[in-house]
């Protein structure tokens, strides 16, 4: 069993010390949480979005006939509720007081000095060699957060129009999806989307939940409001299904990286490979409908989960582009293969770091932040070329499979001709030989031995 020790991020004020006594007020458990004890009669704002059939595009000249929605999702609702929680003092620190900068260089990595995020918490052990783990109601989960940390309920509307209800009852039977604050924000507007919160789903992607996340990105309608997902083993710390999101009006290096198209599926979804970026990954975009894109990415994620490959997902550009990055950092860390120098920075390379937004805990690291340092860290996160090709093959097999095999307009997945695959595989095989227990039934083990 592989484990790493890390300081867990405190995302809720009810997570701090779970044994801590909280003053009782009102009925229920006294915390006014989302569990059975307190949820009866609870009311929360409800935003019902319009399900789009077409992939979103910027409103053209012809697009003006559709009336203004009752509430602008990002600019009014999310920011208004978030600022309200900020003024109520629910966050552990003022994130706008954290120094941040774009690191000089070609890629534009972003560094933030955040000394407060990991204070007052002891390192905890995390198992990193199992991407799928059952939900454990005894551990912290989002049903335990206080209702004041929940900003609103988020669901598809019944009649194809956007609706907003400032005070809607929480329909326990329908298991609402909610957007809650992250009390340790890494940027302004940092929230968590918890799909069907009362169903207590473990941290794994399914079709419906991923579609919901894509809809949230589309609803925000701002390319600088992105959603991210970390699987277990790829620096998720809470095993209760959630996506993160925040607002930072700067392009991320991963969004600027060039990519090479490797396939176009029947549904119009284009898949590319990232180039000239320290972490190897796939980019999914296009598709005739939002569902096309959503289903393809979900299938890919489900395949990675089934094969026990930790990964991160970034939903960018209003849901039009999705980056999928399998990673192996936590595993390397557990195996003692990460240099002490990198470990000392205590940077956990989750989806935001991989996208190029580095949250640094030590002033020294912030002041010395350079493109080279960021690159070196992220290079450790990436799978090797050979391993990445294997993982891509698994993904394509899965996508083709669900597409009944007639799937992808063959452009074939191509190797760069100047790479000598044999020598690379060999080198990786030696270095990574202990890693084959991560994956069952793939070529990995054949290559290794």
């Amino acid at each position, binding site marked *: 069993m592989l484990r790493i020790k890390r300081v867990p991020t405190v995302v809720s004020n009810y997570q701090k010390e779970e044994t801590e006594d909280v003053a009782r007020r009102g009925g229920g458990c006294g915390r006014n949480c989302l569990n059975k004890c307190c949820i009866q009669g609870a009311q929360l704002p409800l935003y019902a979005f319009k399900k789009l059939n077409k992939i979103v595009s910027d409103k053209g000249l012809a697009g003006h006939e559709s009336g203004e929605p009752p509430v602008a999702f990002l600019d*009014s609702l999310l920011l208004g509720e978030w600022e309200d929680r900020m003024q109520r003092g629910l966050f552990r620190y003022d994130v706008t007081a954290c120094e941040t900068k774009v690191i000089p260089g070609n890629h534009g990595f972003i560094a933030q000095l955040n000394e407060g995020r990991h204070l007052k918490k002891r390192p905890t052990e995390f198992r990193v060699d199992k991407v799928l783990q059952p939900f454990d109601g005894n551990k912290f989960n989002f049903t335990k957060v206080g209702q004041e940390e929940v900003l609103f309920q988020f669901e598809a509307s019944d009649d194809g129009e956007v609706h907003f209800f400032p005070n809607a009852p929480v329909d326990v039977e329908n298991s609402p999806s909610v957007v809650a604050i992250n009390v340790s924000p890494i940027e*302004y507007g940092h929230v968590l989307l918890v799909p069907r919160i009362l169903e207590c789903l473990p941290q794994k992607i399914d079709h419906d939940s991923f579609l919901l996340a894509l809809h949230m990105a589309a609803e925000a309608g701002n390319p600088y409001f992105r959603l991210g997902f970390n699987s277990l083993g790829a620096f998720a710390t809470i095993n209760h299904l959630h996506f993160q999101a925040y607002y930072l009006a700067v392009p991320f290096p991963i969004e600027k990286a060039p990519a090479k198209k490797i396939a176009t599926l029947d549904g119009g979804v284009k898949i590319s490979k990232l180039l000239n970026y320290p972490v190897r990954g796939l980019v999914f975009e296009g598709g005739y409908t939002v569902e096309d894109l959503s289903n393809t990415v979900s299938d890919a994620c489900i395949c990675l989960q089934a094969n026990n490959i930790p990964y991160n997902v970034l939903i960018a550009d209003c849901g039009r582009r999705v980056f999928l990055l399998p990673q192996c950092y936590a595993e390397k860390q557990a195996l003692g293969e990460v240099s002490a120098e990198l470990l000392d920075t205590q940077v956990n390379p989750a989806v935001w770091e991989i996208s190029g937004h580095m949250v640094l805990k030590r002033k020294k690291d912030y002041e010395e932040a350079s493109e080279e340092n960021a690159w070196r860290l992220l290079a450790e996160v990436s799978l090797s070329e050979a391993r990445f090709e294997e993982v891509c093959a698994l993904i394509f097999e899965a996508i083709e499979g669900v597409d009944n095999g007639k799937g992808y307009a063959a452009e074939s997945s191509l190797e760069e001709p100047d790479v000598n695959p044999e020598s690379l595989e060999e080198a990786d095989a030696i270095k990574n030989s202990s890693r084959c227990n991560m994956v069952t039934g793939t070529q990995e083990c054949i290559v290794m031995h």
Partner: protein
Amino acid sequence: MASQLLLIEQSFNSRYSVDVREALDEFSESFTITDPSISGHPIVFASRGFLKMSGYSKDEVIGQNGRAFQGPRTNRRSVMEIREAIREERPIQVNLLNYRKDGTPFWMLFHMSPVFCKKDGRVTHFVGVQVPISRKPRRSVSGIERSSVDLSEDGSRLRGDILFGSCRREVCSDTLVELGRVLAIESVLDSDSRGLDIEESCEASDVDKRRAATAINNILSVLTLHSELTGRLVCEKRCSLPEQSLLSSSLNISLGRIKQSFVLTDPHLADMPIVYASDAFLRLTGYARHEVLGFNCRFLSGVDTDSLTLNRIKESIRNEQACTVRILNYRKDKSSFWNFLHISPVRNASGKIAYFVGVQMEEGCKNQDGHGLSPEKRQLSAVGAVRVAVRSLSMGADPSKS
């Protein structure tokens, strides 16, 4: 909307002499001029060539954002590059797929350049030239092609299969070199066996690039010449560092999207003057922008304004804290209104207080029917949007900007 059109008229008329439009209409090229200081960063001038190429009438184009001409197949990375160039106030040349009024897409080389005010170094306009990319025969080595490096389009089928002046399966390596990325990716492509998947990347030739650059230069000369006559000179290169009190054009663009009435004041300048005022603020108070920029907010107070309330505001500014008050304010026409005023410090990327934002809300002015967000939350949302804009736009790699 009428006031927006007035601003657009003024954007041009106040800086250039009257015959500038005539002079610009001499050019056959397709180009637009936009004003980043107006909410929505709208087009304030469109050439005859642009109208012809896009199929829209002048009235349909003026006041629109350039985004309106993009479509589902416009490359998202290219759009991001343009956004970044605007943000950094620098020129850019990029291949872009735009759409005509009839929905047909066309490839063009988009060359955009900022126009600076000579006196204060501010960006007054952006000029964007669109050179249609001429279709060239491909040099194809049997079966072997360079793969496009994702300056191409997404892979879905073409709408109507009409591609005016477009080319297919071209190499985009130059653009990448421009981006400072040297990549040599060659691969064997299965050459489009099903005929469904058209590689729509497109490369402008050197001739196209020169045409675009020449057009930009000619337009800038005309603008410079006609600005001399008004005494409000513009230039191609930034001649002076922007005055401290001036907001960058990108911050102006971001703030311009916020619909509520608000002002930003700069506590680091003497007497804490207003450095930004939203359109809604001008509508609420009846002042013109130039009548409020550079002035302290006290012109909103009058004989019956409670001095205790004013003291509370001063106190919270001194303590760098947010506060909400109900205060009697006066419009330019001397009529008074009760203002639910929320004031909050706003920090820049270094975490230091850069501005105070004041969001006004007229009492009794119900613009919601109870189904929307409460007025208080709307007020707070403006504060949030200001925070994100100020923080994000002060974190450039250039330390002089932060």
